[in-house]
C-alpha cells in the first residue's frame, strides 16, 4: 500500500497543502509546532476515520474556518484508491472512497490499515488498563469486523446498563426484567470478546518477541499475558453474584470491559521495573509487531507512521531501528518525523529510497 498524493484544506494548521510522496522512507523534518505531527495525524485520519490526537472534529478545523478536507490518492494492490474526508462544523462527517460515500464509518476501518508510533506510546505501559485494551482492540478490529461489531455493541449495552443503574439510584428493588435483558445481551458478547482477545495474544506474541529481540539485544524474555475474569469457567456465576454491588455502585463491575494485559520482562512487570529505554523499546516492538501482524493477515503493508521515535533513544538503538526500517522487503512506505534534521540525515546517510521534506508553518518544501 502506498500514498501517492495528499491534499489538506483547513486541517489543523494546514491552509492548503498539496504534496506527492514516494515509496520508501518519507522523512518530515522541521521545528516543533510547524505541523509535522498534524500531517501524520491526517494520514491516521484517513485510516481510522478520526484523529489520533483530538477526537473532537470541530477542533481539527483551522481556527476561523468552517470545514476541513483531507483528499488523498492511494495505490493498493495496483489499484488507485481515492479517499476523501470532509467535515463541516455541525454536520455529519463524510468519507468517500473512489467517489462513493461510506455508509457507516466503522465499515472503513481496516481498508487502509495503519500503525502509528508516537512518543506518548509508553502510556500503554504506564497508564490504566483502558489504554492497553484500546491498543489491542484496534489491532484486532483492523482485520476482524465481527470483533469490531461485538465491541461497539458491548459498549452500547454497557452504556445503557450503567445509565439504568444510575437512574435506579442504588435501590435494591430494581426492575430485574430489564436488567436481565441487558445481561443476556452482554454475557455472550463478553465471552465472544474475551475468547478473541485470548486467541489474539497467542497469535501476536511470536511477532512481538521477534521484534523486541531486534531492537533490544539482551537476555530478557518479554511476555504479554491476557488477564480476564470472563475466561474463568464460572464467570456467569461471578457476574450474577455481584449484581447487588453493581446496583449500589451504579455501574457494571465485571466483564470484558475490565480486562487487562500484563507486560513483563523475565516475569518482572515492565510497568514497575523496566528502565525508560526498556519501556520505550517494549512499545516500539509492540507497534512493529502490530505492523507485521496486520501485514500478514491483510496481505498488504499498513501505513507506518513514526512520530519523533528517535527521541530519548541512544545512538545504538537508533542505528538498529534505522537498519530495521530501511528493509524494503518489509516496509513499502514509511512516514517519519524528526525535529532534528541533522540527526535523521546522519542516520539515514547512504541509505537508498529516503526522501526529505521540510515543513515550515504548514508548508512543505
Amino acid at each position, binding site marked *: 500500500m502506498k500514498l501517492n498524493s495528499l491534499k489538506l484544506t483547513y486541517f489543523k494548521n494546514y491552509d492548503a497543502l498539496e504534496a506527492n510522496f514516494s515509496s520508501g522512507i518519507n522523512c518530515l523534518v522541521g521545528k516543533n509546532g510547524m505541523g509535522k505531527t498534524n500531517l501524520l495525524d491526517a494520514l491516521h485520519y484517513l485510516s481510522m476515520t478520526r484523529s489520533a490526537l483530538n477526537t473532537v472534529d470541530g477542533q481539527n478545523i483551522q481556527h476561523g474556518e468552517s470545514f476541513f478536507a483531507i483528499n488523498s490518492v492511494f495505490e493498493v494492490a495496483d489499484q488507485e484508491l481515492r479517499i476523501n474526508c470532509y467535515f463541516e462544523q455541525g454536520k455529519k462527517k463524510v468519507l468517500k472512497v473512489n467517489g462513493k460515500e461510506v455508509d457507516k464509518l466503522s465499515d472503513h476501518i481496516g481498508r487502509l490499515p495503519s500503525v502509528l508510533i508516537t512518543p506518548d506510546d509508553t502510556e500503554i505501559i504506564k497508564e490504566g488498563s483502558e489504554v492497553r485494551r484500546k491498543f489491542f482492540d484496534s489491532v484486532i478490529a483492523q482485520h476482524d469486523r465481527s470483533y469490531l461489531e461485538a465491541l461497539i*455493541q458491548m459498549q*452500547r*449495552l454497557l*452504556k*445503557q*446498563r450503567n*445509565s*439504568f443503574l*444510575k*437512574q435506579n439510584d442504588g435501590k435494591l428493588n430494581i*426492575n430485574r*426484567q*430489564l436488567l*436481565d*435483558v*441487558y445481561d*443476556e*445481551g452482554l454475557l455472550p458478547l463478553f465471552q465472544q470478546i474475551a475468547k478473541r482477545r485470548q486467541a489474539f495474544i497467542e497469535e501476536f506474541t511470536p511477532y512481538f518477541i521477534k521484534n523486541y529481540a531486534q531492537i533490544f539485544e539482551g537476555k530478557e524474555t518479554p511476555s504479554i499475558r491476557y488477564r480476564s475474569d470472563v475466561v474463568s469457567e464460572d464467570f456467569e456465576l461471578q457476574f450474577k453474584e455481584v449484581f447487588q454491588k453493581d446496583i449500589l455502585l451504579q455501574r457494571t463491575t465485571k466483564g470484558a470491559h475490565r480486562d487487562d494485559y500484563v507486560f513483563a520482562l523475565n516475569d518482572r512487570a515492565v510497568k514497575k521495573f523496566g528502565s525508560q529505554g526498556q519501556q520505550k523499546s517494549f512499545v516500539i516492538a509492540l507497534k512493529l509487531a502490530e505492523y507485521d501482524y496486520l501485514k500478514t493477515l491483510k496481505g498488504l503493508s499498513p501505513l507506518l507512521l513514526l512520530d519523533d521515535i528517535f527521541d530519548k533513544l541512544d545512538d545504538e538503538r537508533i542505528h538498529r531501528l534505522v537498519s530495521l526500517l530501511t528493509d524494503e522487503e518489509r516496509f513499502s512506505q514509511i512516514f517519519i518525523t524528526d525535529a532534528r534534521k541533522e540527526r535523521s540525515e546522519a542516520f539515514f546517510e547512504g541509505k537508498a529510497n529516503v526522501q526529505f521534506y521540510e515543513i515550515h508553518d504548514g508548508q512543505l518544501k
Partner: protein
Amino acid sequence: MEYPSKLVEQAVEEISRLPGIGKKTALRLALHLLKQPESQTAALSESLKDLREQIKYCQTCHIIADTEDCTCQTPSRDTTVICVVEDTPDVLAIRNTGQYNGLFHVLGGRISPMDGIGPDQVKIDSLIARVKQSGSEVKEVILALSSTMEGDTTAFYITKMLKETGVKVSTIARGIPVGGELEYTDELTLGRSIATRTLFSAD
C-alpha cells in the same frame, strides 16, 4: 447573527428549535410571515395552539386521535392480534402496506436509559394490561420495532413481561436495514416483513 429587532430574534429563536431548521431558515420564515396578511399568522398560531390543547391519545392504543374512541374500536378489525410500534408514523406505514388488519399499540418511544427513557416512560404496562384484560381474545402480539440495540432491548423486555400471559409473540422479518426506521422502509418490504413474521423468543 445580528437581528434588526428583538421581536424578530425571539421568533427566530423559537422557530429554529424545530428539527432540521437552522437560524438562517428560521429568519427567512419569520420575515416571510411578516409579508403575509396578519390573519395567516394568526391562523397558524391558532392551529398550533389547538393542536397542543385539544389533541387526544387513544386510551387503549395511544394513537393520536381527535376523539378518544379511535379505529381500535372498529369492529371490522381483527382483534386477536396487536402490532406494537414505537410511534404514530409507524402505524401509518404499516396500514399503508394493506397487509395488516389487526390492532395497534403505540409505545411512544423505545427503552433507552441513556436518553432518560426507562420502561415506565413508554406504554409497556398498558400493553401488558391490555393483553391480560382481553381474556384470551388477543392471540398474538407482533413486535414491529426498529432494528437498533434499543429496539431489540424493548422487544426482549416486552417478551419477558408477556411470558406469563401465554400470548404468542412474533417479530416482523428484518429485511429492514440495521438502524433503519420503519417509517422509511418501502411498503413492499414492510408488507412482506409482516406476512413472514417469525416467532420471537427471549430465551
